[in-house]
């Protein structure tokens, strides 16, 4: 980085750009073994993206990750960080530039939360005031109260809090690359989901390049911009965005690993707002029946949807409501389920099935009807070409 680079205008905390990471036929052969743990792994992680390494145990995913910061040295091939080979850099110095968070978190039990987070800043010789300011900034970033947390020891924190401190510590010097090895592995499912969402929110803010190791395909689909599925012996089976992995598994292994329910998993990648909704035949009581019938003819939905003054859904009208001059309020059924634009399609489908409904009105943030989602739209979404599908992390 030269002088003109660092002279760019900066906010309260200037963030260096994320790094591009490239594996070039990276291979690890442990001494005394005939088969490599990682075999000729080639893939590029674009700057600012989350790349998830996923696969069964023994597939070499953790080895692959640890080769990046030279916790394990590659035996052949190369790994480039922004074009520079990691082999050219001294391990300790390289590691200080790369955030590192592992499953058991590995917080130092004898240091306070603040001292844990300030580990790398201290190694780099930051002054006291700068470290303290950074610690508080990071604690806020990971949704912990600095005043309350800073001076505690790790044993005084809950599992979720420890995990957050671990992430804060990995982010301490604003590294352009983060390595995360099953960071949410030891946490109960409810808190894991919360931490995942929090991390995705955080990532939208900080835009780091992240290498994320997990054995859980659902977590991979949720977290990854790109997913690398590794096969036993560290062979790359497929490297693709989650949607493509689900739509077009490269081989039998990927298909099996992704699971038989991959079609349903695919629905988790899209939100209601991502699909073309049907126009709803909206009618109000007292409206001329002729107008209502015209709207009905213009829509793919066979029943008129009764709405109130604010266009909020009331219910599906029965045939009898349209028998007179004016529309009455005789309902065939209530409008359940009412879906929201931000619902993922999998949840929307589940709601429709639970209500045994074919159609569900979709409302905007004000509660007004914006369209109708049908089982038909969902089944169409399942057949969509992967290129038209947004990737996992964007769909939040």
């Amino acid at each position: 980085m030269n002088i003109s680079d660092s002279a760019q205008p900066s906010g309260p905390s200037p963030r260096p750009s994320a790094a591009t990471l490239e594996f070039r036929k990276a291979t690890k052969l442990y001494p005394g073994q005939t088969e490599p743990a990682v075999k000729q792994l080639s893939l590029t992680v674009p700057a600012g993206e989350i790349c998830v390494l996923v696969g069964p145990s023994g597939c070499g995913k953790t080895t692959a990750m640890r080769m990046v910061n030279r916790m394990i040295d590659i035996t052949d091939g190369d790994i480039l960080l922004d074009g520079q080979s990691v082999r050219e850099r001294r391990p300790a110095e390289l590691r200080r530039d790369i955030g590192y968070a592992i499953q058991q978190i590995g917080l130092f039990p004898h240091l306070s939360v603040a001292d844990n987070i300030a580990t790398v800043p201290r190694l780099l010789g930051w002054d006291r005031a700068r470290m303290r300011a950074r610690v508080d900034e990071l604690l806020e970033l990971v949704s912990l109260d600095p005043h309350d947390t800073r001076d505690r020891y790790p044993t005084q924190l809950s599992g979720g809090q420890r995990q957050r401190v671990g992430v804060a510590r990995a982010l301490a010097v604003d590294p352009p690359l983060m390595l995360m090895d099953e960071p949410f592995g030891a946490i109960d499912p409810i808190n894991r989901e919360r931490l995942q969402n929090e991390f995705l929110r955080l990532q939208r803010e900080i835009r780091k390049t992240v290498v994320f190791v997990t054995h859980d395909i659902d977590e991979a689909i949720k977290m990854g911009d790109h997913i690398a599925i590794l096969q036993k012996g560290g062979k790359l089976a497929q490297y693709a965005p989650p949607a493509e992995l689900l739509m077009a598994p490269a081989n039998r292994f990927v298909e099996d690993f992704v699971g038989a329910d991959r079609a349903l998993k695919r629905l988790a990648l899209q939100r209601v707002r991502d699909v073309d909704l049907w126009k709803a035949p909206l009618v109000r009581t007292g409206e001329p029946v002729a107008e209502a019938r015209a709207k009905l003819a213009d829509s793919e939905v066979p029943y008129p949807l009764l709405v109130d003054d604010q266009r909020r859904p009331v219910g599906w009208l029965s045939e009898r409501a349209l028998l007179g001059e004016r529309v009455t309020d005789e309902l065939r059924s209530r409008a359940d389920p009412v879906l929201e634009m931000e619902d993922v399609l999998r949840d929307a489908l589940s709601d429709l099935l639970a209500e045994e409904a074919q159609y569900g009105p979709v409302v905007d943030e004000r509660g007004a009807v914006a369209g109708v989602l049908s089982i038909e739209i969902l089944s169409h979404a399942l057949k969509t070409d992967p290129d038209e599908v947004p990737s996992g992390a964007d769909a939040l």
Partner: protein
Amino acid sequence: MSALLAQVEIRERTQDTCVSDNGFCPGWIVDNFDRYVDPFVQHVLLTVVAVAIGFVIAFSLALIAYRRRWLINPITQVTGVLYTIPSIAAFFLLLPLTGRGFLTAIIALVAYVLLIIFRNVLTGLDNVPEETKDAGRGMGLTDRQLLWRVEVPLALPEIMAGLRIAVTTTVGLATLAFFAGAGGLGKEIFADIVFKSNVVVAGGLAVALAALLDGAILLAQRAITPWTRAVAAR
């Protein structure tokens, strides 16, 4: 041995029947307490110097063996042999080499504490959780930084426990140091082993010293390992 003891006579035979009956005589103790001050100071010196030297040697050996695991067995065996040699035998074995005096006593006492401290330091270092070390390395701590900033601090509870055992044991063993001509409270005890007042005061001082040093180390341990007393999450 009795010939050795017979040379010393610590009390003037008085008309006091308590004293002549070798009883426990508070009056005599108050009058004669002065005579125990110098031996007590000698005893403190023997213990502290021996444990300090023993700690430096054993701690260094443990750090070396921690990184070079193959050294653990030979070091354990050698210090183990030193540990099993009876102190009195060690004193007499050393006499021809180092003569009577402080040095001989210190060498024998140091030899005795090596195994205790070595084992405790090594156990402490070995008990540092693997993920803590991995996280430290992964964040860019060098081996040396990891040792002094993470591994040694986390081993402190075991290290201090070893020190406590070493100190209390050494206070006891140092009562034999007078065989090497190094004085100490043992000299007073054996000077008149039938006189209860003498034995109680000299022996009591040794026990008190052991308790005092042990308590001091415990306090020091609490001061330098505050995290061990942090209350767990609610």
